[in-house]
């Protein structure tokens, strides 16, 4: 169905169901319970799951299939955000033109950077993309201030000359982003018992685009083009001596993944119409790499899982402070409690980045195939045990 095999269609169906039901699934604890801090079912965070899911799915098309490790993909995300905000400023608050422009501009930018970076492979390629991203960051941060508004970041103002729309609302405020009149920030809350489930327009737009992005990624994985990309990773010599030019294949993969990043950037700006240079920093590029390898580079579902995992724990970890820690460990004797808290507080709150770095090292060292591979290993272990159990059961019958 939809041109997919049965397995892939089921996978797409599962992801679609998860996206649709996320406001319930991510909100398992009643709003006033102590565990409510582990809920993730609020619009802002759910939008992030979807947006970074798109980012990672796109990154995986380059890194997972061809093995080319780009350290500069945040640049395309940033370019996408800036383009979208400019579209809001100049044309209309409708998100469609903004998203289209962000994808197109990011694609063109990726074409330029890819054309130069892909002259080399391996480490050279990684370093070149890193340098380009850092250059883009510098451009956005200071050089191109008229376009990017430098340190402050690009924002909407009351004086924006919006061609298809008004500069100010009747109430004198800045208009909000919308999809043909449907406001992105609008949220319906459904209260059931102690639970408060939130359904946000912006989230469902992001969700729909994630599904589309995921669907296209499946099609690419199963296409002759996808096979060529995996062949690039496996053996470029043989590919060259099989009459195939590797350059356009890798460049196409680079541009496609740049467009995914642009889409993610455009969506970020559509949910919250501002764009800052920090989105282009190397840490942001590193984050998408981590999402992809944590989930499982080269697998279909891995990047989506990785993005969700990282964004969820970023949110939870950042919220934990000393008071929360004391409330957790207060049953311990004082001296032990203090020691435990001293250790833990390195990793929570503003220490989230430390956790991220450690996670990076641990995943690369011990789980290079990511969560998907880890899951498969565990699955195989159980199956073997099952098979062994069956074998012992069936022996007496023989």
């Amino acid at each position, binding site marked *: 169905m939809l*041109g*997919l*095999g049965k397995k892939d269609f089921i996978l797409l169906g599962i992801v679609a169901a998860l996206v649709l039901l996320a406001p319930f699934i991510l909100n398992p604890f009643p709003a006033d319970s102590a565990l409510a801090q582990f809920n993730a079912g609020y619009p802002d965070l759910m939008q992030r799951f979807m947006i970074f899911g798109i980012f990672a799915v796109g990154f995986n098309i380059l890194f997972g299939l061809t093995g080319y490790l780009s350290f500069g993909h945040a640049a395309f995300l940033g370019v996408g955000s800036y383009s979208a905000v400019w579209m809001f400023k100049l044309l209309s608050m409708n998100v469609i033109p903004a998203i289209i422009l962000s994808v197109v501009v990011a694609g063109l930018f990726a074409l330029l950077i890819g054309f130069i970076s892909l002259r080399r492979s391996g480490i050279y390629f990684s370093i070149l993309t890193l340098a380009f991203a850092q250059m883009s960051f510098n451009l956005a941060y200071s050089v191109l201030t008229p376009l990017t508004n430098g340190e402050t970041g690009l924002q909407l103002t009351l004086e924006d000359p919006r061609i298809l729309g008004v500069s100010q609302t009747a109430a004198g405020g800045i208009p909000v982003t919308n999809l043909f009149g449907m406001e992105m920030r609008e949220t319906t809350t459904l209260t059931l018992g102690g639970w408060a489930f939130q359904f946000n327009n912006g989230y469902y737009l992001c969700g729909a685009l994630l599904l589309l992005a995921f669907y*296209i990624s499946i*099609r*690419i994985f*199963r*296409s*002759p*083009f*996808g*096979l*060529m990309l*995996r*062949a690039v*990773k*496996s*053996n470029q*010599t*043989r*590919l*060259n*001596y*099989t*009459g*195939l*030019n590797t350059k*356009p*294949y890798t460049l*196409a993969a680079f541009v*496609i993944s740049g467009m995914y990043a642009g889409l993610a950037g455009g969506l970020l700006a559509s949910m919250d119409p501002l764009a800052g240079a920090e989105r282009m920093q190397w840490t942001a590029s590193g984050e998408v790499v981590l999402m992809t390898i944590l989930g499982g580079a080269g697998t279909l579902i891995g990047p989506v899982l990785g993005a969700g995992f990282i964004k969820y724990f970023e949110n939870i970890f950042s919220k934990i402070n000393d008071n929360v820690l004391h409330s957790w460990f207060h049953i311990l004797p004082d001296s032990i409690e203090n020691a435990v808290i001293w250790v833990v507080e390195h990793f929570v709150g503003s220490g989230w980045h430390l956790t991220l770095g450690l996670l990076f090292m641990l995943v690369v060292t011990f789980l290079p195939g990511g969560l998907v591979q880890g899951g498969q290993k565990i699955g195989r272990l159980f199956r073997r045990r099952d098979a062994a159990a069956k074998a012992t059961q069936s022996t007496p019958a023989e």
Partner: protein
Amino acid sequence: MGILEVKNVGKRFGGLQALSNVNLSIAENTVHALIGPNGAGKSTLLNCLVGKLIPDTGSVMFDGQSVLGRTPYEINQMGISRVFQTPEIFGDLTVMENMMIPCLAKRDGVFKLNALRTLGRDAEIRDKAEQMLIDMNMIEKREMHSASMSRGDKRRLEIGMCLAQEPRLLLLDEPTAGMARADTNNTIDLLKQIKAERDITIAIIEHDMHVVFSLAERITVLAQGTPLVEDVPEKIKGHPKVREAYLGESAAAA
């Protein structure tokens, strides 16, 4: 006029004259062997034919067209396929996937952005790849991870991948190097069978005289970067110059 005409080719690496004044003509639909002691310039010559190296002087014409200055993939698309000394296959892919790539290259050319087409439904490619695997007698291995196969099977797959492109000239660089006797004999039989079934020209570089004399219809002996003699195998065997330059050496060693 042969299918491949090499004229006055010379190649220098720093102080070493690897090839000088190489003239070679390979007739269509023959098996032509290139032999010579180590360092005779066999591999350099081969690399000049496939676009890995560009000779300093001379010309290389394939089917009336110059190959000089073209990239390996362009030369391949002209109809020259190459088998490497150590099998070059896509180790991360399955045998079937390996075989589909040359089929795609033959049909779609150097690059095609068919990113939304489903490979599994491409009956033309699938059938052709399966047929090729049947011909190579490895259809039962189609879902195998190709890196986990034996060296002989890898070689068989690589030859099959080259044939799937329907090349007019197949270049083999020491195809039996490092193989056990049984695998070597299998490869000889395979090549004989290929020659019998297809209109194809085969050029082979080989150290193993057993392989050379089982297959070759003509032999060129290369020594110190230049062709010494070219003749039919029977004449080469007894040729005094060849004995001196090459066979004498190995006969003495034996």
